């Protein structure tokens, strides 16, 4: 049977559903017998779910408009000095 460190090495591929059938069977067998890896698998899976669903690193409304204005003003002033966009 595989060891805990081997399980951890394969954990990412298991979470992304990228493991071969035989390896998956070995990982599942390990999981059925190892409480620590069960906890690790469950909590890492939940971590991944929370990250995906948290809407992290959102674009705050109040900065959006002034930022667009700053970007466009830089671009327009560059157009006054050169022939941008470049050929």
């Amino acid at each position: 049977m595989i060891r805990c460190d081997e399980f951890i090495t394969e954990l990412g591929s298991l979470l992304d559903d990228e493991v071969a059938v035989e390896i998956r069977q070995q990982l599942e067998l390990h999981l059925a017998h190892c409480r620590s890896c069960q906890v690790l698998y469950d909590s890492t899976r939940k971590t991944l779910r929370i990250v995906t669903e948290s809407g992290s690193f959102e674009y705050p409304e109040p900065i959006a408009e002034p930022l667009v204005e700053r970007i466009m003003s830089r671009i327009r002033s560059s157009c006054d000095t050169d022939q941008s966009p470049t050929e």
Partner: protein
Amino acid sequence: MTFLRSEENGPRDSSVLAFLKSNFGFVPNVFRDQMLRSDIVQAEANLIDSVLLKQGALTRFQKECILLVVSAANSNTYSVALLGQTLEILGISREQSDQIAVDHQGSTLSEADKAILEATKKLAESPIAFSEEDIKSLRRQGFSEEQILECILITGLANFLNTVQTGLGALPDFPPRIVFPLKKEVNLSLESGRPTIERALDKDFLSEDPDTEIVARVQGGDTDAFEELVRKHGRRIYRSLVGILGSADEAEDAMQDVFMKAFQHIRDFERRSKFSTWLVRIAINTAIQRVRGRKEIDSLEEEDGEFRPRNIQAWQDDPEQCCSKEEMRRLIEKEIIKLPMKYRLVLMLRDVEELSTAEAANALGLGVPAVKARLVRGRLMLREALVPYFSKESTGVTA
């Protein structure tokens, strides 16, 4: 999607798919579309392993170049896009691989490499003209019998895969940079209403880009039209930047640079990918340049020892119920930003921006195995940081 009926595509979860995934970072459609006979895909995978992946007399780079030149000689848009991507992961720029595909004689390859590609092209393009003289000429360039044999086998492999892809109508895995014109015989199939790869390409990557019209206006000199692109894509670009750079102020600053670069180079944008994809790539490169300019450069390059999770406490069934969505968002941001840069970069690209492993590898200039190793480490580190908030013994979130 394939010319064959998709419901007949056979089992999805198969060890052969996992093998292909581990070597390519994903399963190319040309194999996925053959899964009705997974036993044959397995045999092909074994052949690819022996001929291409295992160390042989030719280098991996030489072998990939042979595949590329044969695929270009066969006008196989699909394979040229796939190989361009593979070569990029091997450290060859898109410009170099495009040059090799279109005209290897004009590339910066060695004379010997050009000679082997010339022979391979002749074998693929006009086999009737190929003779022992071509083999002798390779010997004169210093190639061994084993190297010449590998060259011929890989030419055959490329022809096989090109034919299978065309026959099945496998859709490209990546937006192609070079689209070959339809050959006469393919045009005949167009008249009969049968879909062709170029039609599918047109639908997926060219005309369906919602920004095509605005981009064309900007390319035509309408600077005001660019403002629409800034408004439309600002959110996504900002998210990528703040996640990688870890600071809202720096992200705002970098965002100006990203759009400035995009504007200055918009005439180089050739619609081989969606505009949004092109823009995200500029953002990632800009952020990475800034990261490399910091002291964190060391932590990006060094490999750490083995990481062992220490805090093994069971989590609550529904950690999302522990706090409000806003508290959760702040907590996740705070903890992601605390991760060492090299793990944060991979986790941001894969789990926040949801790029594929191959795309993330490409954007970061890493191999797929390195991305996978860093990703699992990043996820485990983040999990460890979240244990105090979500374990069954925790007292709640005060992010």
